[in-house]
């Protein structure tokens, strides 16, 4: 694998949608993959099967990343089964939409916990072995909503904007150890999370279509590859021109 150290990749929230596509893309690039899921064990097992049928290696890892204990548990299991974690993709994300006067504390907190705090804890756990290995790739799945206003998503937007700031800061901290930290900001992508979102939005997309999970996964695959060794601290927007 181009002289990179032996190791594995962890993708959170990988039982479906963008996470599942990312797991597949990394496996195609030769990474053994830990497919994390919270509840959808069937989806996760299907992702694992697709990878192993194609000759790759993968295991399903149950864990709710919003629980502070989960980071250590996931890493320990993946390290034991597939080797040191050299690629971390913080993809797990939830929405709890509403206009700000109507977002209650619970809906605020759970979005921040899953989308931002979990990414921090998993990154913290990943960094120390990556620093020792002189190799690491952290890719955080953000969103264009973190950059441009979208009424009804103050909690989601705050979590994603925070994720980008976390990305840049950590990138600057660890760059000299060969660890890159980047974000990918998808626009409107065809997944369960965007089902039911008004069709009018497509009129504003210059490409006149939603993107696919595979198109987002390809960006993550690139950032996790040897080819992107000098790319760090960036947010790669993949939105068909929506925020251009």
């Amino acid at each position, binding site marked *: 694998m181009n002289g990179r150290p032996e190791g594995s990749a962890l993708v959170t929230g990988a039982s479906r949608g963008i996470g599942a596509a990312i797991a597949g893309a990394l496996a195609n690039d030769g990474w053994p993959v830990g497919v994390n899921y919270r509840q959808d064990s069937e989806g996760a097992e299907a992702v694992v099967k697709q990878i192993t049928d194609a000759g790759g290696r993968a295991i399903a890892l149950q864990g709710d990343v919003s629980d502070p204990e989960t980071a250590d548990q996931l890493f320990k299991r993946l390290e034991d089964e597939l080797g040191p974690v050299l690629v971390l993709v913080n993809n797990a994300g939830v929405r709890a939409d509403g206009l700000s006067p109507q977002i209650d504390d619970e809906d605020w907190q759970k979005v921040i916990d899953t989308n931002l705090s979990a990414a921090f804890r998993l990154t913290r756990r990943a960094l*120390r072995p990556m*620093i*020792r290995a002189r190799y690491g790739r952290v890719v955080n799945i953000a969103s264009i909503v973190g950059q441009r206003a979208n009424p009804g998503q103050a909690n989601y937007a705050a979590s994603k904007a925070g994720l980008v700031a976390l990305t840049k800061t950590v990138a600057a*901290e*660890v760059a*000299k*150890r060969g660890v890159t930290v980047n974000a990918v900001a998808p626009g409107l992508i065809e997944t369960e999370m965007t089902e039911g979102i008004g069709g009018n939005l497509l009129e504003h997309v210059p490409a006149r279509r939603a993107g696919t999970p595979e198109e987002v996964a390809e960006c993550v695959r690139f950032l996790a590859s040897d080819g992107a060794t000098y790319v760090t601290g960036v947010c790669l927007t993949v939105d068909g021109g929506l925020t251009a």
Partner: protein
Amino acid sequence: MSTTATRQEIEQRVFQALEEFGAEPDQIGPDAEFEAMDVDSLDLVELAQIVEDDYGVQLKGEDMEGITTVRQAVDLVVSKLP
């Protein structure tokens, strides 16, 4: 993981780590200052990881505050040996 590491063993391990971090061998010594060897805070984070892996000693951020020389670092590790 050593069960009873000696001060000298720990000091040697620290010297080895400093060399890995790029410090010039002739600058490394028991009273060397980290700043003079271009050893920065990220290097010290890694040193804490090495110390944890090899000796089971956990060094938190606040423990490392004010540690500016090899001697202080080794003393700190020795003081926390299980």
